[in-house]
């Protein structure tokens, strides 16, 4: 097991290297260091000298990938690519183009993102499973049919409409919650209610349908028929057998996304001005602060790979038949 994990970690290194090269190439084709400097220095009275100074200070004066003026190993080391990406592997994100420490910012903004994403995941899971169970329980009735229709309808609505509509009705017309904002500690709850509700509703359509198919697959299996034949009621079979067996795919599905929760939701956070990592990323894109974007790409990749690893491990835990090799 431990050997396996170590191997997976080693496997992650070329992956992350690939990610780094790709993002690096993408962003530096687009934006030369000169552009970055001008972007950050503003519009009024910018001189060539100021641009040079800026690049020098931020380490963007070096060649991109290969330094001909240096000797030996320094040919690789004294380049923007080396200097900027090696530190990423040590999780030292450096300073952003606008001059703030990215690591400190990420640490700070991680929590609001989690505060939205985690309740959304949990409540969403609960609601989706409940709805799916209901659909299975009432299968064949008008209720199931209308729920499926409702699910398809919910799925066909763009998430933007949920956000705009939710803010308009609950925040503006009914005045039940603050329209947007965030606060630390327990005060955050009143700000989180609306985003969480909205993202749960937006997720019901696809979520409930997915769980329904999972349950239906189980319901048609032989052991369920046996259980029913033994005289268990519909509810009992459903909760005791079906739910329990369907939990494996549900759990593993959840585990994959767990690490990615840190990354936050891009749109939701901007709309509700929640200072999480999602809005951090969007801001960085809009301001073309690529030091931040690079860091976020790297972080996202790491978390994704970590999620894959977690899934594998959780498989072995819930299902002893699976062996990691």
């Amino acid at each position: 097991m431990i050997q396996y994990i170590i191997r997976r970690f080693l496997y992650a290194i070329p992956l992350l290297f690939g990610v780094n090269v790709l993002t690096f190439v993408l962003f530096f084709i687009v934006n030369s260091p000169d552009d970055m400097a001008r972007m950050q220095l503003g519009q009024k009275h910018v001189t060539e000298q100021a641009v040079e100074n800026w690049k020098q200070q931020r380490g963007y004066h070096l060649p991109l990938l290969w330094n001909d003026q240096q000797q030996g190993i320094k040919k690789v080391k004294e380049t923007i690519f080396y200097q900027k990406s090696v530190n990423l592997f040590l999780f030292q994100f450096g300073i952003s183009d606008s001059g703030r420490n990215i690591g400190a910012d990420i640490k700070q903004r991680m929590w609001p993102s989690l505060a939205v994403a985690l309740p959304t995941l949990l409540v969403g899971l609960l609601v989706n499973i409940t709805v799916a169970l209901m659909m299975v329980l009432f299968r064949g009735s008008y209720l199931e049919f209308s729920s499926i229709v409702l699910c398809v309808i919910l799925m066909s609505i763009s998430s933007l409409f949920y956000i705009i509509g939710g803010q308009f009705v609950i925040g503006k017309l009914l005045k039940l919650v603050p329209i947007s904002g965030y606060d630390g500690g327990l005060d955050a709850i009143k700000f989180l209610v609306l985003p969480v509700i909205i993202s749960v509703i937006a997720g019901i359509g696809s979520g409930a349908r997915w769980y329904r198919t999972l349950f239906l697959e189980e319901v048609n299996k032989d052991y369920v028929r046996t259980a029913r034949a033994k005289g268990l009621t519909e509810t009992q079979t459903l909760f005791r057998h079906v739910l329990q067996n369907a939990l494996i795919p549900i759990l593993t599905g959840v585990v994959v996304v767990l690490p990615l929760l840190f990354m936050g939701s891009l749109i939701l956070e901007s709309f509700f001005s929640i200072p999480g990592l999602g809005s951090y990323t969007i801001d960085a894109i809009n301001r073309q602060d690529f030091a931040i974007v690079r860091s976020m790409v790297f972080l996202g990749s790491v978390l994704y790979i970590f999620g894959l690893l977690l899934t594998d491990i959780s498989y072995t835990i819930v299902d002893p038949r699976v062996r990691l090799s």
Partner: protein
Amino acid sequence: MKRTSQKTCLLLTLIVSLVLSGCDDLQLNNPYSDSEAGQTVLYSSFTERPKHLDPAISYSANEYALIGQIYEPPFQYHYLKRPYTLEPLTAEKMPDISYFDAEGKQLSDKVDAENIAFTEYLITLQQGIKFQPHPAFAKDKQGNFLFHQLSQQQLDSINSLVDFKVADSREVTAEDYIYQIKRLAHPKIHSPVAELMKQHIVGLTEFSKQIAKKKLVNIASIPISGVEFVNQYQYRIRIKGKYPQFIYWLAMPFFSPMAWEADVFYSQQGLIDKNITLDWYPVGTGPYMLVENNPNRRMVLEKNPEFHPAYYPSEGEEGDRERGLLEDAGEKLPFIDKVVYILEKETIPYWNKFLQGYYDASGIASDSFDQAVQFTGQGGEELTPLMKGKGIQLQTAVATSTFYMGFNMLNPEVGGDSERARKLRRAIAIAMDYEEHIAIFMNGRGVSAQGVLPPGIYGYQTGQAGINPYVYDWGNGQAQRKSIEVAKQLMIEAGYAEGIDNKTGEALILYFDTAASGPDDRARLNWYRKQFEKLGIQLVIRATDYNRFQQKMRSGNAQIFIWGWNADYPDPENFFFLLYGGHGKVKYGGENAANYQNAEFDRLFEQMRNMENGSERLKIIRKMEAIVRYDAPWLFGLHPKNFSLYHSWYQNLKPNLMANNTMKYKRIDALKRVELRKKWNRPVFWPLIVLVIMFGAILIPAINAYRRRAKETMQ
């Protein structure tokens, strides 16, 4: 049946409790903690976190809104007086100015500008002004600084400035003002005005070279030849030649005092790694100090306990007394205890919160304009009944900025000094109907420009004499755009009859370069195209991102573009220099984006910029305007008009486009605010209850159906 009745019971209690609580003064949507309710806290917002709060670097309006309250340069603009006049802020009086020739002999005030080699400003400071309390000043009993060399152990417990338990203050001296000037010159600081100031202040260039390799903390002791420490409360700045506008720079945060202790304190790597830098935690002398800076969420200003005595002005412009602006005359400043800036990126939530009373002031987004403002018969504007009902106040002011459509004068098609190109430019100037532009895209919030200077700047002319005679006629007491026929005639004269190029026989194609990419921009770009179509010209729009656009401007590849300029200080020089040949963008990397070069204009500019305001200067300004109107390197666009809304509890408001430290004059009636907020924010519960009932109604038959089926399977 029993279970259903239980459920109904539960439901009923729920409804009753909700309805009951609804009758209370419940404010479920209050985004602030209840403890702040009765305090005089001003709530404002920022859409993008400020990039810099270091007064040597910061150079944009949103940053000045903050540091204007924290840092104090020696002079300031009078809050109420118009035209804008300077008055001492931390200085005792206005500076003593003396002129010298090249030999160092003092000259009289009346002497011509050409003979003046140097000007000296002697600034006398008020005594007893102190810095805000700050850990950088904290000393132990032996007189050693407590926090200038933090150990790792100390650093571990520190995450923001609040975590320092000890803070101290000290008196400001002339040394601190000089130190700030030195900081401007340091290459590491990247001050945006460094290059500009090097052109003016004697010895700054040499100083900058001398200290280039030195650390910031070590430069305090190295002298600059042009900046002299006289005594603790006096210092002297020597500038090259005569440059009367220099006094305006002395009223900008660039010249506010900076304590060397602050730089030493903030240069510790351990603090930098935690984003605790001078760029984020200012150390000033002003009425407020930044106590919380979380650019990801909010920034909080609180009263500076060490603030020097300052009083509300007792005189103002005519009519200020009637408007109630002088009621607080002589009262001690500041009035508001605390200012909270909250991150708010979207305009909709901001506007809605403003209407709910959770923000005290708001601009008007173009989408909510109709909701807020209506025009009266004679082009005046007033609030809609909805706004009036809430007691909201409206203030308008024409900004001291200009937006223009520039022609790249280096471009062979539209640029150059030929009669053909000039006529083409003028024809376009007539065709571009900026009045319509203002009406459609800005809800009438702007005035079309007649020349380089915006209203409120010395030399701006109203009435018939002030119109641009090549584009406008005077009629019915107002400027009227010439008819499109005049423009078409100009096109024929230029050799582009009906937009067909005489030489090639093909339609004239012009290129418009822009960095615009917002959702509203499509309509705007379409509109531009339509204006050009009136003359038969095809306008091709080359939209790109901001960096690319800038690059094009620098390399002179742009043809037609739209750009704006916001006044640094209220002097015509600050606008005419945008057309000065020596500031050409392509050749010199300056701000003359149109790359306009006209020998006569340049000569007049050089003459005008060193003059004091007066009839002679006015004459030159008129001449310069006439030249630019004739050559038309710019198509004068518009001057935006700012509309701001304020709630009734917000007082002492007068738009001041130059001053950035006006927070201290403003006043808030917190009790009235609490009242009104309660009134406006009663939560509505019944739809929720209806929803619950509906859900129950759906569930009941389903449960019944299920029961029936369960029974069937049992049997």
